[in-house]
């Protein structure tokens, strides 16, 4: 007990090691801290990889078809459902999802915890129509290839002998 008493006495005259935090700015988080998700819809390719790897299924994709045939794709990240594992960011090939170092996720409303972003996916151009001749030509090509393959197969045993 005596050493503790000594320690207590010396501590009494030292500066407290307490952070000042609620007064003033929040301190910087540690390097590579995984905090609030940021989502950049502009580079997203809508691959859906993030949704596949997300264990708590915190993201939600809304697909809304616009009048002109384009799709408005909205990704919603519910931070109150996220485990901040960073898997989505790792798997995102275009780095559209990143985890920032903002940890101050405090709020009174559900909206405070929603990270969302949307982009328009252009409808692809209409496909060209094939004529019957073209189809017949393609079929013939396929037949020829097949025959060639069969011939090659027949020659093989000979080569072995």
């Amino acid at each position: 007990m005596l050493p503790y008493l000594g320690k207590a006495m010396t501590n009494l005259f030292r500066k407290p090691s307490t952070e000042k935090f609620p007064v003033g700015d929040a301190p910087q988080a540690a390097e590579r801290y995984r905090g609030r998700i940021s989502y950049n819809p502009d580079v997203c390719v809508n691959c859906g990889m993030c949704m596949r790897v997300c264990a708590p299924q915190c993201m939600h994709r809304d697909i809304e078809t616009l009048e002109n045939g384009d799709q408005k794709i909205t990704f919603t990240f519910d931070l109150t459902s996220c485990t901040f594992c960073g898997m989505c960011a790792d798997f995102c090939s275009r780095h559209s999802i990143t985890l920032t170092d903002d940890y101050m996720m405090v709020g009174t409303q559900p909206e405070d915890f929603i990270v969302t972003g949307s982009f328009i996916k252009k409808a692809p151009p209409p496909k060209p129509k094939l004529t019957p001749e073209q189809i017949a030509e393609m079929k013939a090509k396929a037949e020829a290839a097949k025959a060639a393959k069969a011939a090659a197969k027949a020659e093989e045993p000979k080569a072995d002998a």
Partner: protein
Amino acid sequence: MFEKLIDNSMAKSPWIFHVNAGSCNGCDIELVSVLTPRYDAERFGFRLTGTPRQADIVVVSGPITLQTRDRLRRVLEQVPEPYVVVSLGSCPKSGNVFKGSYSIDGPLDKWTHVDVSVAGCTPKPEAIVAALAKATEILKEKRKEMRK
């Protein structure tokens, strides 16, 4: 005047009661670390109590499992007015990775009003301190409203 004094003290001495509703202990440890020298919540009068009867702020962590559901409800009923509920971490608000499990009966909103939520798995102690600070303001407002 006396009532005003009480209102002001309400924000200066909030006592916390912590309910673990099936949490993995991550948030619980972080909550305790709020009282450590580094974050020292006691300078705002925070104090962990052992009983809901003396609590002003009820901090709930963990998804609401079937086992803890009734206990949680009982504890929440036993807290004297006015009080504030804080949901700590992602689990109580959504169920987190346990979402959809057969043994989860959440989220917390289903059983009580949640005044302040902290997201994170787990939240940093600074975030918890900020949430508690917000909770004290709400506590004061609640008391004022009740008085009217």
